[in-house]
């Protein structure tokens, strides 16, 4: 089904339930990888551009694609709970997934913190551990044993309450949920959107040194930047690429 992205009707704020349409209606990624393989730039793979990047940037970005770091900071139980949390909060319901919990774990294991700690929270590392306990506690309030194996609807309700600062009891009596949410989401979003697969999904041109960007006007793009799929007529496109009937 074609969608016109000149219009904004797909945006959650403009929809009654504040939820987007299913991403399953988006095209499958044809070049490279996006998380769950959907996106709006199916032929754009930012990793194709690495020969145009400087060496230092290439090294640091490719490391992220090549391997998911092993879990070294979280315990097995924590990693299971927090892995489920990261998947649901980033809507990663199937492979390929960006290994968010592994990336967060690596950062915490290395002690790479962000330079500030709220006076009513512990150290970020301890906050993460308590959030793991708190997610299980909140899941139990919904009558299930733990967060990781809870039904999807329960996970969504727990996370929704977390986002709204509306978790109470046990861990949450000592851990202000709204602040803890900001701490964990800062790390989750930094991990997810540092990954080139996420750049493919959103059509971000990525590193551009030493090449630079030259086409700055509205609607313009560099020759190597990805075209949104919906600018093309799907019938002509499949005919043109000779993939008719596949």
């Amino acid at each position, binding site marked *: 089904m074609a969608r016109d*992205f*000149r*219009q*904004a009707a*797909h*945006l*959650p*704020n*403009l929809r009654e339930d*504040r*939820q*987007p*349409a299913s*991403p399953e209606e988006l095209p499958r990624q044809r070049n490279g990888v996006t998380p769950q393989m959907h996106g*709006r730039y199916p032929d754009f793979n930012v990793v194709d551009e690495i020969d145009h*990047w*400087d060496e*230092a*940037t290439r090294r640091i*970005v490719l490391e992220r694609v090549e391997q998911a770091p092993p879990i070294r900071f979280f315990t097995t139980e924590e990693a299971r709970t927090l892995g489920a949390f990261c998947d*649901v*909060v*980033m*809507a990663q319901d199937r492979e390929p997934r960006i290994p968010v919990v592994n990336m967060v774990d690596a950062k915490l294991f290395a002690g*790479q*913190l*962000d*330079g*500030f*700690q*709220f*006076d009513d929270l512990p150290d970020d590392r301890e906050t993460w551990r308590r959030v793991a306990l708190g997610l299980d506690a909140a899941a139990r309030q919904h009558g299930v044993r733990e967060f990781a194996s809870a039904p999807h609807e329960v996970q*969504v309700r727990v*996370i929704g309450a977390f*986002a709204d600062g509306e978790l109470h009891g046990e861990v949450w009596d000592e851990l202000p949920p709204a602040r803890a949410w900001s701490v964990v989401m*800062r790390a989750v*979003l*930094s991990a*997810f*959107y*540092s990954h080139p697969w*996420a*750049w493919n*999904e*959103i*059509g*971000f*041109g990525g*590193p*551009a*040194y*030493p090449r*630079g*960007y*030259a086409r*700055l*006007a*509205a*609607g313009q793009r560099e020759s190597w930047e990805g075209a*949104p799929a919906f600018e093309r007529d799907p019938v002509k496109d499949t005919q043109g690429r000779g993939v008719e009937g596949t």
Partner: protein
Amino acid sequence: MTSPHGLRTLLRGAVRPPDNDSAFLLDVHRRAVPRERMARYDDAYPVDLVIVGAGAGGATLAQRLARRGWKVVVLEVGPFWDPDEDWVSDEAGSHKLYWTDKRIIGGTDPVELGKNNSGRGVGGSMVHYAGYCPRFHPSDFEVRTRDGVGEDWPISYADLKPHFERLELELPVAGDWWPWGDPHRYPHTAHPIAGGAEAAWAGARKLGIEMRVGPVGITNGSFGNRPHCIYRGFCLQGCKVNAKASPLVTHIPDAIQHAAEIRDGCMATHIELDDSSGRVTGVRYIRGERECFQRAEAVAVAGYSIETPRLLLNSTSRRFPSGLANGNDQVGRCVMVQGATQVAGRFPEEMRMYKAPPPEISSEQFYETDPARGFARGFSIQTVGPLPIEWAQHVLADGHWGMALREYMRDYNHWYTLGVLCELLPLPENRVTVVPEVCDQNGLPVARMDYTQCENDRKNIAFAKQTLHDVFEAAEAQDVLVIDRYAHLVGGCRMGVDPERSVVDSDHRTWEVPNLFIADGSVMPTQGSANPALTIMALASRLAERLDLKRVGESGSRRRRRGERQRPVLSRSGGG
């Protein structure tokens, strides 16, 4: 020559700054600052001045005084960057540019630190600032008199104007003719703007809001051995091109050329005081595993609004049991941030806001007090260009996660973002203190920053936010997303005329220690709605002039060089 069409306009960009060869001392093909021949001073040798911190204040002061023959050592905790090797076109990979040691934040409206406002390494926070270099307005120096809020400065706009002009040539600053504050021109012409900025500008125009392009410390045309900007968009991750101004490329090369030593990897831990004379004798610091002590005739602290108060508060002695120069309990007070709410608008066309430098257009039309708005002082409007991680934070702040967040993120290329800088007022309870029970890896108590807005602050932010909404509505944006945040840091050791209400006098000298100076943004009594970098540099530039001309009374080093070994402790007249 005063006409906008005069000779100076024709020569725009060809004017070489006087007394600063930095841009010509850089290598044409490598970005690293050449320092093979940098002077090295022995710790035991009492240099004329030791400066703590190689950022906007410290580096400018070092360059100015080194030019005038002072023997200067700058201690910098972070590394001497090699942009080719150390910096990347990548948000997450730029973590090391920020001050990430532990700090505690409190108050009703706590301020996130780290990458938002705290630098580390030679060049300081200007390595990762966006590049905006507006001047303060003349009114900023007398807000108490004009508007009945905040504090008057002990100096005026006229005191800083020649330094603003000189620094604009040195950075150099590019921008349109500037109609606000003290109207002025810029040495480099304005950069091109992207489609998003044009759309937002169209909206502003409908509302009668004037915008201008710039002012940014980014070369528009070659400048010495610094090339033209390539519009790569990663200004906040350190400029790999050397097009964006930071002290690393604008002042450090010339300082080195004139025998200043920039000693990196040095964490200052204590400023030593001679209890009998009441003068400081030098700075204790840790380099690697080793504790060292650099002797000096005078000390200038330029560690910015958190680390400067922290170093003073941790430098206790018999004479100053609650921290150096803190006899009146003023150190750390009146620390300020600007309200920096951002509103993004959605457009039918792709805007791809990651291209071009984030600073593009700005307006200072709302800078001054307008009684009709119901609060004192005002705000400025500037464009910002969040990269994906920052954009994700923006979407999250609007209340989205999961599928909704992913959908907004996929829509990234259709958005454009404006931000405000609201002048928030100096309040004594907004303060940097130290936490004795929490120490860093060197065993030093960490800093704590408490921050709470006052009623005027909240009204200012609410009005500014509504203005951005109005601009995007007029621009026919299809949807908007809002994030409330802060930007910049100043104050904490403010200058004044009364030792009971300030830490330093108008010459940056601490009231209580005659050879101890503060040379960074922490001396600022108010902050205006301007990004602080240019003003911090201008203050340091003026301080250097005052020190060298001995207008600040005695300067130990100058006397010593002339063989006058006796250095009377300066007596201060009045002080109020």
